[in-house]
């Protein structure tokens, strides 16, 4: 390869990167979430409140699929604090939901890494815990499913989101969300012993 060809190739590479960056910047504010992020980065506190209302159920469901019920609220809180601090680092603002979901999953994993100490329950509460309510059994069955299925089912059955909303706010495609729901529900029925 001649020197001219070599340097020309490198220059074209650099030009392509600059073009991609320009295109990415031009399309970042197409979705409502992206505009919300832009307002938050500009210092709009109300925008962050709207952001929280939209994504809190999603984060809550993702965390609930992984950690004990009593720890969910604290972790959800930490997720949004971390998101607020690092929102300016989001590369693609149209996919801020997927970014937020990743933070929620990471903090859920970190919960177990920290080895959070447990306290013995008082007598009256311990008796309630032993009752094995139907809800706790169903939740335990959902949590025993593969993570992707469990997460999607919790967002649908517990948080009440539709399949399209789950896909939009977690960064999945509609097809992936549909598959997760259908297969997850089939496995859940088998675990619960329910006929289709």
């Amino acid at each position, binding site marked *: 390869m001649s020197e001219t060809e070599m340097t020309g190739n*490198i220059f074209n590479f650099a030009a392509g990167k600059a073009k991609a960056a320009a295109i990415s910047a031009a399309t970042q504010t197409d979705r409502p979430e992206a505009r919300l992020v832009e307002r938050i980065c500009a210092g709009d506190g109300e925008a*962050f409140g709207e952001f929280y209302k939209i994504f809190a159920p999603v984060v809550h469901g993702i965390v609930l699929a992984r950690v004990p019920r009593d720890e969910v*609220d604290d972790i959800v809180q930490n997720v949004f604090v971390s998101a607020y601090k690092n929102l*300016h680092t989001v590369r693609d603002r149209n996919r801020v939901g997927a970014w937020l979901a990743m933070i929620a999953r990471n903090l859920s994993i970190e919960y177990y890494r920290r080895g959070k100490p447990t306290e013995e329950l008082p007598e009256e509460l311990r008796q309630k815990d032993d009752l094995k309510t139907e809800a706790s059994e169903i939740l335990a069955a959902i949590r025993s499913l593969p993570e992707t299925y469990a997460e999607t089912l919790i967002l649908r059955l517990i948080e009440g989101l539709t399949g399209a909303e789950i896909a939009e706010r977690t960064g999945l495609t509609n097809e992936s969300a549909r598959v997760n729901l259908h297969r997850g529900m089939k496995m859940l029925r088998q675990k619960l012993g329910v006929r289709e």
Partner: protein
Amino acid sequence: MKEDYLWDKTGGDPEIERLENALAAYRFQENDTPLIPSLPAKVLAFEQKPARRFYKLAFAAAACLAFAAAGSGVWFGFYNDKTTNRDSAKTIEPEKIVAPRNESKVDNSPESLVEKTEVSTAGKDGNYKQFARSKFVKVHKNIQPVVYRKGAKPANVEVEAEVKLTAEERYAYDQLRLALSITSSKLKLVKNKVEGVEEKNVARKGGR
């Protein structure tokens, strides 16, 4: 249809509705949500992002160009070694470089250092003088390597007395300088290009 209700809550499915009712206790309740703690007062401005992108892009381009320059320098040096003892060794004007053509009559005497001779001129005994360590060098037209001589100084040869480098070393040095100059010029082009893109983005955002 069951799948429709599972997907978008259209129609009905008693089984899924029963699960939803049973699990309602775990649903996120906005009323019970703890107050958002005091958030950091300072939010980094959006405008910082283009600078980080520029540095990443420029660094990547610089790394590629530097690697290409280093690779070309090594390749040229390796290629020059491979072209030794070739019959088709090329030479340029007599006043710029010397290179013996006839490798079969190589003078291996210790006195045969780099000397400037006329290309068309043979030695007294018909033997061409050996060019530094019996190597034929393919020389670029635009390069004027410095020839070091032992003994008398010819009239039309450029010699640097204070830096003692062989012709090969000098040639490699000049090649490296050329590669570095190309690299720096291309880096400047990349930087200008990226700065032009960033200015467009800032102008577009300012116009909203």
